[in-house]
């Protein structure tokens, strides 16, 4: 077979294998972690076709595709107790935070530059730092410019929903086929403790009145958008003691109105961020608490479990942020688009996906006997493989395996960028804390020191399965374990 080399980010490759090596070898493709429950199996084929290359909407796609956000919409029409747009630290990763505000023209230039050097790019989103639907003029101008230059890039936006009903027709006309609405409560009694005020119809409103108007507008937007065939994902922030039990109701309500995905995210409440919740001592949930609420919602709207709560100017695969590589001052004068690189990359992904899917099916068939669910922490930089050194992982993808199959259940971050200056020992303590209930860790390599510390905490580190597909490796571990004579599958 003779193949013509395809240029990918300056790399000349001539085979699928080389392409794989190029893409995972520290080029663009180095997602730190994750996966979720959404795959072709639990989505209807039409929806799957529309989201299969969207890293935020499909767990499977996030191993292969990158998104970028441009911060063109700074103005917001509500205040949330978990948000403070006043402070930004470049190392902080949370929604609402940006280092650089862009005009629509600057944003379009940046998208062009990223598209030319990151062939994995498939989606452009506008998610703040304010509200994309409220700051509509800037959002719309940006999308219009990008759609003209890069018709193969999908467009999506995030909103609190208050201003959304006013723009539904334009959203449909502009071919925006994904919208995210953040809905944290449908009961205004609860909502009033999350939103101190909203600005609506020329007035600042507070309390039950504000929470009711917001809720009504959110549900109205959801209904209007889904009725017109726009895919809508709902985000909810899990605030322990406030809406944890209530999120099941939210899940039911949004599913009934056609949301195709529900993303329950943990509250981030570091006092250093200066948010109301941070300052008032409202804590965020633990990984286990989050999983419990997500599991309680199973059977409702499909759950998203691989959200990264990215910055409003994040660039790259989920779990990595290359935003700092593409600040305005670093954009080249002349930007030549590289459509053929994106097309070549998409072809490669199609083959890689078929391969991984059949490997996963084999693996699942092979573990049909496993009784109790076992958790695995996986170090990966994308493509669904075990291809990251333990020491380089800043987050771990958590998989659960039992007789019903192997599935992604979440990701856990292992270091907190914003505190800075931590020694390795402190980081290791943190890793042991977040992986407390996980008996197995899969990585491409690990040193003796960390391996011993993990073992001391009851976590077995396995690096003999490097480059395997995640599912294949998990099946192999379960096999050797059963072979080692009926050891219990669980150590938690």
């Amino acid at each position, binding site marked *: 077979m003779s193949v013509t080399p395809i240029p990918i980010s300056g790399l000349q490759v001539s085979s699928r294998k080389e392409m794989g090596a190029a893409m995972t070898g520290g080029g663009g493709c180095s997602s730190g972690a994750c996966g979720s429950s959404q795959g072709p199996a639990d989505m209807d084929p039409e929806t799957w076709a529309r989201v299969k290359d969207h890293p935020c909407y499909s767990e499977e796609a996030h191993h292969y595709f990158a998104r970028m956000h441009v911060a063109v919409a700074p*103005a*917001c*029409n509500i205040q949330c107790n978990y948000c403070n*747009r006043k402070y930004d630290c470049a190392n902080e990763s949370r929604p609402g935070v940006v280092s650089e*505000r862009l005009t629509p023209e600057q944003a379009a230039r940046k998208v062009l530059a990223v598209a030319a050097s990151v062939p994995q790019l498939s989606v452009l989103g506008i998610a703040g730092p*304010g509200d994309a639907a*409220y700051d509509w003029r800037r959002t719309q101008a940006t999308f219009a410019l990008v759609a003209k230059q890069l018709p193969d890039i999908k467009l999506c936006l995030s909103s609190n929903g208050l201003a959304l009903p006013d723009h539904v027709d334009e959203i449909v006309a502009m071919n925006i086929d994904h919208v995210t609405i953040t809905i944290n409560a449908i009961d205004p009694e609860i909502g009033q403790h999350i939103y101190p005020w909203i600005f609506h119809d*020329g*007035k*600042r409103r507070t309390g039950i009145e504000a929470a009711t108007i917001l809720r009504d507008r959110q549900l109205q937007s959801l209904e209007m958008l889904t009725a017109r065939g726009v895919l809508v994902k709902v985000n909810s922030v899990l605030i322990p003691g406030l809406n944890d039990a209530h999120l099941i109701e939210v899940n039911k309500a949004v599913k009934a109105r056609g949301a195709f995905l529900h993303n329950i995210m943990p509250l981030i409440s570091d006092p250093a961020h200066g948010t109301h919740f941070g300052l008032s001592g409202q804590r965020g949930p633990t990984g286990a608490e989050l999983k419990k609420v997500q599991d309680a919602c199973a059977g409702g709207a499909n759950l998203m479990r691989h959200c990264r709560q990215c910055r409003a100017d994040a660039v790259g695969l989920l779990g990595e942020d290359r935003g700092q590589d593409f600040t305005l001052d670093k954009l080249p004068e002349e930007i030549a688009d590289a459509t053929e690189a994106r097309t070549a990359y998409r072809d490669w992904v199609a083959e890689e996906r078929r391969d991984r899917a059949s490997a996963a099916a084999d693996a699942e068939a092979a573990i049909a006997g496993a009784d109790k669910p076992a958790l695995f922490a996986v170090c990966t930089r994308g493509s669904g493989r075990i291809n990251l050194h333990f020491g380089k992982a800043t987050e771990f993808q958590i998989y659960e395996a039992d007789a019903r199959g192997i599935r992604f259940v979440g990701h856990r971050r292992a270091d907190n960028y914003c505190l800075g200056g931590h020694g390795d020992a402190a980081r290791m303590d943190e890793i042991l804390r977040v992986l407390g209930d996980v008996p197995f860790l899969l990585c491409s390599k690990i040193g003796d020191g960390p391996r011993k510390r993990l073992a001391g905490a009851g976590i077995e580190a396995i690096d003999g399965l490097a480059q395997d597909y995640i599912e294949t490796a998990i099946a192999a571990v379960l096999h050797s374990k059963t072979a080692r004579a009926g050891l219990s599958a669980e150590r938690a």
Partner: protein
Amino acid sequence: MALKIVKSQCTVCGACEFECPNAAIKFKGEAYIIDAEKCTECEGQFDTPQCAAVCPVPGTCVPA
């Protein structure tokens, strides 16, 4: 009769700019400023000054 923006507080979000019914607020250089000539404190148009009502930071849009 006018409002002003306390520069040290402002997050430069621009919400006040597009709520102002009199186009009195402009982005100049690094900050938003209110043109005292054009500002009516929203008298006769709204119950409260729109810029103060939409501003996310308390005490940023204040009487000049």
